[in-house]
């Protein structure tokens, strides 16, 4: 079966049709070129003999063929027989080349690869052309039946062609030739549950598929029934369709389904278009003729086309002009997606200007230091009686220490013997009482220590906050981040320019070579290069200035050194005459290939930079504001801590300090407690 059939086939009128090479192969049959080649007709030959029904259907389609059908589809133009009077074994159809399946247009990743120039206007036009194609099919009473992402093709001018037409549903009088296939994603809810497609399909069924495809084209490949389902169980697409769970509809909450993250809703299209979608995907659509037809779609999309605006920030963003701002900018900002590729530039920001904003953002500088030691305080006066109590306590301690010292001296000099054990014990008890007796000052001391602890705690808290929020660490970190981003940006930009330059240079070389190739050796006016010599040069393949190289000349015995140099000089002179014409020769496609290579790399860096600069400005503003608003509170805590420290200090003396103070107190009686 795979080998090229040698025998010619016969069309309806008995013309011999010679097949050329095989162009493609499918489940049902193979597609061949027709000889002589370059004809715009191809042939499909089935693998297996066809039943009578299918043969009749093809014959009917071929008879019904007209220019309108041919212009939008691979419509059977004639049937093919293997022998005269034999069964139909294949058919002829218009050749469709340079088209891609529609899923490569609506899916953003494939679109950017295969249709890099397509903007939203292109997608709207594709949807409109799709509606036009459906309109023609329905106008002549046919039904597509198996609407799917693979049998609708689109070219780079947004023109649409339908293929696999032999599966369409055909009606002839009261006879109906079914379309027996279908794909669930495009099959309307009302017939989704049937086990097979041996049934009458209607234009209203097709219109469901048309609405799905239009939605996918306008909404970046999202299927209208695919969303975030809030139920626990799995929600396969098929089931979601059967249950009319249109994720973007006004009843979506009622259907427990929400649009997916990073998607746009019906608000990006005019109310007229949104209403068509609501109509097509709701229960009412399942009624006979319940869905908007191809004509209605065409009208609505035509009207949308006339209401488009180009985004001022990014020329590749076309959007519905009824919107206040560009929805694609917003989606790109919030999602990090690159929806469309720019056709002319790789970047939409001006780096030096953006960087000026960074430079213009004054550094907050190091944090002003706030410290409790900056605040000197006098201890709070002691409550009456407490001062005296402290003196008393200090006196007790002094006496206690003195007793210990005396005892130590006595022990040292061996003046204590064992029979003094009991008085010794008594002395120890007295000393213990002297030290441990709490006295009236203890409560005050506890209170002041409590104050100190809470003042210290609060200070730590506020000081940390001060450093974190009024310090410049966050600013510097963000600045470093921006510097890194700028480095990244510059590298990508450099690489792009280098590639562009290399491209230009190669084109310049090519142009120059062409120019030199036109400088015939006959036009050489160097006196010593005579006609005879020119003939010799030509005989060894040196016909133009382009052929002159030192290597080539060295091999020619008739040339001496001076002649060689003179010829090389002539070539150089010719080279100087060459003028590079940048408008000629640089292939737009080559440049755009470069743009499309570098743009996706640059885009995220660009976005991070722009957002990062805004963040830097925000951080700077915050810091300066915090330095003003936080300062009083932090200073208050510093002051409170300083106060608590001196307050407590009164009680916290080391024994040495204590002794020296006591001695001082004895020597210079009562200067008042500090």
């Amino acid at each position, binding site marked *: 079966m795979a080998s090229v059939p040698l025998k010619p086939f016969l069309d309806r009128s008995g013309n011999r049709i010679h097949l050329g090479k095989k162009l493609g192969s499918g489940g049902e049959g193979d597609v061949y070129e027709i000889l002589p080649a370059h004809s715009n007709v191809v042939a499909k030959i089935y693998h297996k003999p066809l039943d009578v029904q299918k043969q009749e259907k093809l014959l009917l389609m071929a008879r019904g063929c007209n220019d309108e059908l041919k212009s939008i589809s691979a419509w059977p133009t004639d049937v093919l027989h293997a022998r005269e009077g034999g069964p139909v074994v294949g058919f002829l159809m218009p050749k469709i080349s340079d088209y891609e399946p529609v899923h490569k247009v609506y899916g953003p990743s494939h679109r950017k690869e295969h249709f890099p120039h397509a903007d939203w206007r292109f997608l709207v036009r594709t949807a409109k052309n799709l509606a036009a194609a459906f309109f023609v099919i329905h106008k002549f009473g046919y039904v597509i039946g198996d609407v799917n992402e693979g049998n609708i093709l689109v070219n780079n001018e947004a023109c649409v062609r339908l293929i696999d037409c032999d599966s369409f549903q055909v009606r002839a009088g009261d006879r109906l030739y079914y379309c027996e296939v279908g794909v669930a994603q495009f099959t309307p809810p009302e017939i989704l549950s049937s086990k097979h497609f041996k049934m009458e399909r209607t234009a209203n069924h097709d219109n469901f598929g048309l609405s799905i495809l239009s939605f996918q084209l306008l909404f970046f490949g999202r299927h209208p029934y695919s969303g975030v389902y809030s139920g626990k169980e799995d929600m396969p*697409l098929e089931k979601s369709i059967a249950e009319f769970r249109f994720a973007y509809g006004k009843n979506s909450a009622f259907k427990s389904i929400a649009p997916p993250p*990073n998607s746009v809703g019906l608000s990006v299209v005019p109310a007229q278009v949104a209403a068509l979608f609501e109509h097509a995907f709701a229960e009412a659509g399942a009624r006979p003729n319940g869905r908007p037809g191809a004509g209605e779609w065409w009208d609505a999309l035509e009207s949308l086309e006339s209401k488009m605006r180009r985004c001022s920030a990014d020329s590749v963003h076309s959007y519905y002009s009824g919107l206040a701002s560009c929805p694609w900018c917003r989606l790109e900002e919030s999602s990090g997606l690159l929806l469309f590729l720019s056709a002319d530039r790789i970047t939409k920001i001006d780096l030096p200007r953006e960087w000026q904003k960074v430079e213009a953002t004054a550094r907050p500088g190091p944090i002003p230091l706030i410290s409790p030691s900056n605040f000197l305080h006098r201890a709070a006066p002691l409550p009456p009686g407490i001062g005296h109590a402290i003196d008393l306590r200090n006196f007790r301690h002094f006496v206690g220490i003195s007793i210990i010292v005396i005892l130590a001296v006595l022990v040292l000099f061996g003046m204590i013997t064992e029979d003094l054990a009991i008085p010794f014990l008594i002395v120890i008890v007295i000393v213990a009482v002297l030290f441990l007796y709490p006295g009236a000052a203890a409560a005050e001391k506890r209170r002041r220590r409590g104050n100190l602890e809470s003042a210290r705690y609060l200070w730590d808290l506020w000081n940390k906050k001060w450093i974190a929020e009024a310090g410049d660490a966050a600013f510097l970190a963000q600045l470093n981040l921006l510097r890194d981003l700028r480095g990244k940006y510059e590298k990508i930009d450099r690489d792009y320019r280098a590639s562009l330059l290399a491209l230009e240079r190669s084109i310049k070389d090519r142009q120059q070579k062409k120019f030199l190739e036109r400088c015939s050796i006959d036009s050489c006016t160097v006196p010593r290069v005579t006609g005879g010599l020119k003939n010799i040069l030509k005989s060894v393949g040196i016909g133009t200035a382009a052929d002159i190289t030192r290597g080539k000349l060295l091999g020619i015995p008739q040339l001496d050194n001076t002649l060689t140099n003179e010829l090389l000089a002539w070539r150089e002179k010719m080279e100087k005459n060459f003028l590079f014409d940048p408008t000629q020769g640089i292939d737009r496609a080559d440049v755009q290939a470069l743009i499309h290579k570098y743009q996706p790399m640059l885009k995220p860096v660009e976005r991070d930079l722009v*957002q990062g600069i805004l963040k830097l400005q925000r951080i700077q503003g915050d810091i300066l504001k915090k330095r003003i608003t936080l300062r009083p509170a932090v200073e208050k805590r510093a002051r409170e801590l300083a106060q608590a420290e001196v307050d407590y200090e009164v009680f916290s003396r080391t024994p040495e300090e204590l002794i020296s103070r006591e001695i001082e107190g004895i020597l210079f009686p009562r200067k008042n407690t500090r």
Partner: protein
Amino acid sequence: MDDNTNDMLPDQQPLGAVTFAENPEPRCPCLLLLDTSGSMAGQPITELNAGIREFYSELQNDSLAIKRVEVALMSFGPVRLISEFNTADCFFDPQLVAEGDTPMGEAIRKGIDLIKTRKEQYRANGISFYRPWIFLITDGAPTDEWQSAAAMVREGESAKSFAFFTIGVHKADMKILKQISVRDPVKLQGLKFREFFQWLSNSMKSASRSNPGDRIQLAPPLGWSEI
């Protein structure tokens, strides 16, 4: 340039969400649980690697399958997640090496977890999906506790959470495989891994064109299995 600088910017969307927006096609996940125990050393592991490479290139050549089929690779002996669920354009050569024993139970449990996580990501991102397929390929018997894994397989199959298939190579213990999988295990003919993966890619291609419902349509396992 260090890559982690970007992590410092908050408000970044996780990569996954962008990928789903760039390619919102319904997903057809397929998990391969691959035995890389010592007994697979030599010809078997070489053939397995070649088969996987072919599998990916078949998927890459199909413009719909490349957007819909997601493959994850997990090897056991020891259990390693070699590749997360990814479409075939993100293919990377697994270069499996045979070593260790056969912790099949652990691999199955982790694999089922992986499927669960991926399904949650699909749901959160509003991506429709087909019932996941799990293919377990082994040439031996589990060296760890596998009964709990078998229970998880039964549970998942009855809840239609996934379809679990087992492929036995050489001296694989077909009896235990039969106890693990609800579906009958299939014995690989010799080392026809390539034929198996050719068949699998064809099945995935047609599955990715069918309906993301619960039907499973596998072609008969011809050309690579012992019947």
